[in-house]
């Protein structure tokens, strides 16, 4: 059996890359590193034509900036028909953890659209804050929200 056979070294993704996955990867990498000044490089991509890149910018904003993050682009991605968009969004929410909980709660309380998917994200976070939010949703007077949350809590 061969030892790990090597490909040429990984190219670093560039913010200016032509492919959305390259730009989104570059943004995610900067956000994960948490480097000072990274947001200044990322912010111009807020209006990128690719929803995947806009989702990555939302992820980076939540990681790098103070205050309530605007996670609407990530929430939009969860409703996408593209497998990669949904996969990116759910992994991004997972990586954000408790930071994402208030935005998720605000959305599921206000809207039915996307509620089931976001509640699933919430239940898979498995943090105390996420569990408390799910328990609160289960006590909601909105019966649809309460029933969905109860079902997830009972799993």
């Amino acid at each position: 059996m061969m030892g790990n056979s090597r490909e040429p070294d990984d190219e670093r993704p560039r913010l200016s890359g032509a492919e959305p996955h390259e730009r989104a990867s570059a943004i995610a990498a900067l956000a994960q590193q948490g480097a000072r000044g990274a947001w200044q490089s990322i912010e111009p991509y807020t209006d990128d034509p690719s929803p995947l890149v806009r989702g990555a910018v939302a992820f980076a904003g939540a990681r790098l900036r103070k205050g309530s993050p605007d996670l609407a682009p990530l929430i939009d991605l969860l409703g996408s028909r593209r497998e990669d968009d949904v996969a990116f969004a759910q992994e991004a929410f997972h990586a954000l953890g408790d930071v994402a909980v208030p935005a998720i709660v605000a959305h599921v309380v206000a809207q039915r659209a996307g509620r089931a998917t976001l509640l699933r994200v919430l239940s898979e976070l498995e943090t105390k804050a996420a569990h408390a939010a799910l328990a609160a949703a289960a006590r909601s007077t909105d019966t649809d929200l309460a029933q969905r949350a109860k079902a997830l809590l009972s799993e």
Partner: protein
Amino acid sequence: MAPSTSKKLPLEAFVRLLRSKKDPNEIAAEIMALAPSLPESAIALMDEALPGAHPLVRVAIMDAYYTLTKCDWHLDDLDALAEHGAQKKDDDLLAAASVAAARQAREPEDTWVTRGVQIVAAATKRRGPRRRGVAPERRDSITIVIHGTWARDGSWWRRGGDFFEYLRTDGAIADLYDSDDRFEWSGENRDRSRERGAAELSRWIAAHRSARVRVLAHSHGANIASLATRHGTEFDQLVMMSPPVREDYLPVWSRVRHAYNIQAKFDAVVAVARGGRWFRDVAQNLPIREKRLTACGHSSSHEPKVWREEGLARLVKLPWE
């Protein structure tokens, strides 16, 4: 493979029970009590013991088999044993076989406990032909495709799906598993769900008896397969497509004959997930071939077009013998 210490004692106790000359009622009761702690290696012993065993002991073995594998292959046999018990007025056999059959048919299990009439009802109420209650013959090889997180409802990895059919036609994989009881896992993005999926995969593979097991697995599905090696599962081929590479999910390399890691040129999903892209970043000299595609995107590694254009069938040496 040597069983782990924690699983060794139940297995030894099981072997002793199968050889025991004790009352069949006692043997059956002890097998049922032992069932939840038995390892997958008990399946082969069950196959050997079933033909010559006392009817009550057979019921216990079939019930233990279901506990271990969640496969209902013995349902018809249990129905037949229940009917045999009813004809012979053997209430113990009738009750035990009825309960075991009800459990496998996912019917309420308590129908038998009240009175004899209901025991008969439980045994005879099921109608219609069932699959033959026999386990499949041992195969030479089997190839399975495993989906990743949140992808259980997707189609690409199952019969009729584009990647699955590409493997069957272009890849000439003759042993691709396409029955309805295919392996699938919850797809939840949780460590414990992946660990549970790995245990389920090990049980599924043990139950499907194959000398060689080949797997093509996407994303965290690859980590399910890797974790399954810690349950003793061995793979002849393990093709990992866009896995998030994590140290806590590394396979037992000695249980993988040929391993491949196929990664997209850029993959934002793996970039944001916990983990890296390359096993060579975790350790050197691992027995794996790593390939970077020219295509971008997390799903590109299971797209037939990418497999054709980038010669991935050649990379993994399809068709496999």
